[in-house]
């Protein structure tokens, strides 16, 4: 690729469009982590071979000076996450917007021959709506996409993340140019404040105000940090953005840097996201080559350099002060605030630290204006929010909706309904939604019509967090879920402050008592009391919110807790220690298979006689259940 020597964005865009207009069809293969795991790369390779076999010309990158109209040109490209992970690998064919789902490498020849050459649609590769059973042709028809409002994710899944020209042709870096050449730092802070953008990482602090605080700090050296340490289990919005549109994130960082007067930035990415690391690094290299980043950006006299820092596996590093310690090469432990990062941040200098999604929204605000952005959303929560929709729901994947959308819309209309443990859609299955990961809480049936925004969720004891939305069906034990999160935070507690280090440990022990049948009413009271102490007395955000999953389930699922405690009974039969295992006398034929296999000799009974389990000896390991061919062992799920 030749370097774009003088950064004339309009010229780059014009050339690109001229080249794109000569393309007969554009085939976009989703190359997000999800689709790659399902074999997207093999599909890509087979499509490439099939195009050549069909005698057409294929380009993986648009050559700007090719004038060959004798053959039909096909532009084959990979893209970032298109969002519909459950249906991967996805292949999107433009300009018709035909979307094929679950494509296998064997399908490549047929796709080229029929859809590309003869303009036919291959019915069997279309998405089948699980509710109505009808086939939908593309993103414009599939309810999962139709009901979303993809602004921040807009170009994600359309542009090739590894091609800076495509991003520029889609309007990229124009906002950064405007920020460096036309606007003053105060203008930028004011526009962002006016847009009502709030931090998407969890806290929801107004971005414009944060920038303004850092801008006014007198210092020669300042930093911008992009927080891509998306540690919440069940969240992958930031990963998808960094993989799918890394240049947008860089552009957001450049604008932030201009607004506060910084000339250096760090992108902190989790090491669990190797593809995101790779794509961010490539984007930075290309931006340097293109003259978008580096010395004298756009000839403005300002310089800007960005580095990628790979995390090393610590959830607490998502906390801003801990993250900065980690960049400095120390243990990632949080510091008391104040001083805030705006005053004393990375290497002691004023620092703005924003979440990936927040930064990705910024170029849009400068491109289209604050009033365009704040027309979306509710009074105090402006714009759109991406959610990672996962768990027991038909359409798992990445979605983006305006603030104020109800849970019902998300779970039933976009998500396609709740599924049972076998993956079938059920109508009565909804139990709860866990939102905001280990810092968040649960929402239940009564909250289905609550408009989702920052303040409504806080009032319900949950939080938007980074946006992980895990749907749970009626077969999920909520005490187990609470224990799962407690186990997570207890493991991830950095150990600096006592309330979090010891409190989470005690809470986990109390939860273990409950699910293992040792609990009394006192356990329950103590759990709530310890939870409140941890919440009040911990040093950082991780500790302060660690008890939320427990405290929220205690309120919403009190009966379920009490069943475990008073009657030693798990209503969903998930708690191993509380299961009562027995042999159904109607079904047992006395084959002795279970008795022979039982590792603790808890089963007795003669040949062709009814067998019995001695509950006092039984360890509930489940071997008898597995070996019984007559389904006579009952009590396991």
């Amino acid at each position: 690729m030749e370097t774009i020597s003088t950064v004339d964005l309009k010229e780059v865009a014009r050339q690109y469009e001229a080249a794109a207009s000569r393309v007969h069809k554009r085939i976009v293969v989703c190359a997000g982590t999800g689709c790659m795991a399902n074999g997207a790369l093999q599909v890509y390779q087979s499509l490439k071979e099939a195009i050549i076999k069909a005698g057409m010309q294929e380009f993986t990158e648009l050559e700007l000076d090719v004038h060959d109209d004798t053959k039909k040109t096909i532009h084959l490209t990979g893209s970032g996450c298109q969002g519909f992970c459950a249906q991967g690998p996805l292949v999107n064919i433009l300009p018709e917007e035909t979307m094929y789902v679950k494509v296998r490498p064997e399908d490549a020849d047929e796709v080229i021959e029929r859809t590309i050459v003869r303009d036919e649609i291959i019915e069997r590769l279309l998405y089948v709506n699980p509710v109505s059973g009808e086939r939908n042709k593309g993103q414009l028809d599939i309810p999962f996409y139709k009901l979303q409002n993809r602004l921040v994710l807009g170009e994600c899944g359309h542009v090739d993340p590894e091609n800076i020209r495509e991003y520029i042709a889609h309007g990229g870096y124009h906002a950064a140019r405007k920020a460096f050449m036309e606007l003053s730092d105060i203008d930028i802070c004011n526009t962002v404040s006016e847009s009502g953008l709030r931090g998407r990482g969890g806290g929801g602090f107004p971005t414009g105000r944060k920038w303004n605080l850092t801008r006014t700090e007198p210092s020669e050296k300042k930093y911008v940090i992009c927080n891509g340490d998306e540690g919440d289990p069940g969240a992958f919005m930031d990963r998808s953005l960094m993989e799918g549109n890394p240049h947008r994130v860089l552009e957001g960082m450049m604008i932030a840097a201009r607004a506060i007067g910084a000339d250096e930035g760090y992108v902190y990415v989790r090491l669990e996201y190797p593809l995101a690391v790779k794509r961010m690094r490539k984007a930075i290299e290309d931006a340097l080559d293109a003259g978008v980043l580096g010395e004298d950006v756009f000839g403005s006299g300002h310089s800007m350099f960005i580095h990628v820092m790979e995390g090393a596996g610590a959830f607490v590093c998502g906390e801003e002060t801990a993250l900065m310690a980690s960049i400095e090469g120390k243990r990632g432990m949080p510091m008391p605030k104040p001083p805030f990062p705006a005053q004393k941040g990375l290497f002691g200098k004023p620092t703005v630290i924003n979440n990936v999604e927040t930064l990705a929204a910024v170029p849009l605000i400068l491109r289209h204006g604050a009033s365009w952005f704040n027309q979306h959303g509710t009074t105090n929560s402006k714009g759109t929010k991406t959610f990672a929709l996962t768990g027991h729901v038909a359409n798992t994947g990445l979605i983006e909706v305006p603030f104020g959308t109800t849970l019902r819309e998300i779970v039933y209309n976009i998500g396609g309904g709740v599924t049972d443990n076998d993956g079938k859609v059920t109508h009565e299955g909804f139990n709860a939604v866990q939102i905001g990961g280990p810092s968040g809480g649960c929402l239940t049936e009564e909250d289905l019509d609550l408009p989702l925004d920052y303040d409504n969720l806080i009032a319900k004891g949950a939080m938007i967090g980074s946006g992980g939305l895990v749907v749970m069906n009626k077969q999920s034990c909520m005490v187990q879920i609470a224990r799962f999160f407690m186990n997570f935070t207890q493991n991830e507690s950095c150990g600096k402050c006592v309330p979090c280090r010891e409190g989470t440990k005690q809470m986990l022990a109390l939860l273990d008592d409950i699910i293992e049948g040792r609990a009394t009413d006192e356990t329950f009271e103590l759990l709530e009391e310890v939870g409140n102490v941890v919440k009040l007395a911990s040093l950082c955000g991780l500790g302060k919110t660690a008890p939320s999953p427990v405290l929220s389930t205690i309120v919403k699922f009190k009966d379920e807790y009490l069943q475990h405690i008073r009657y030693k009974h798990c209503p969903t039969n998930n708690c191993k220690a509380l299961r009562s295992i027995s042999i159904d006398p109607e079904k047992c034929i006395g084959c002795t298979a279970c008795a022979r296999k039982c590792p603790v000799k808890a089963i007795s009974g003669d040949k062709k006689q009814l067998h019995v389990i001695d509950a006092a000896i039984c360890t509930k390991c489940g071997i008898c259940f597995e070996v019984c061919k007559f389904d006579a062992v009952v009590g396991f799920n």
Partner: protein
Amino acid sequence: MKYKRCLCTILIQAKVKTEPNKNLRQFQQVIEIIERNNHDKARLIPILQEVQEAYRFLPPQVLTYIATALNMPVAEVYGVATFYAHFSLEAKGKYIIKVCDGTACHVKGSSRLLDTLHSKLGLSDKKHTTDDMMFTVEAVSCLGACGLAPVMVVNEKVYGEVSARKCEEVLTEIRETENSLAIEQA
């Protein structure tokens, strides 16, 4: 800088005396990594990451070496190495199997996968690596592929919607590759 280099040399010489060739080779890589990172203390984490990639774990003598080269207390380097989950002070197997235990994977039965792997490989929550140094099984926090839950990663390869049976298939597949490798070598 001079002082640091000097110490490095002394350390190398000390090591060379005991096991000449092996240790010289061993430390050569560390030296290169530290040089590449300009002896910068702030780059301790990238240094440890690169060292771990080269050695597959962080041997104690290497940690001491790094501390000396960067002119920092060994305790501080040790503190960082033990703080982050990614760093391992123990040798890991040839195949590192990571079972995702994020929320989505958890509700879709990741613990069943872990049980299967543990029982098939004779491992437990305490014992992570098989005696033949072939497999290491770890439960890890969210890998961000929740749409495919439950997820398992073997070295770099991601497997989605993994069932207990698929787990066994993957293990068999690896064993077969290893066997044919062994035959080829013989």
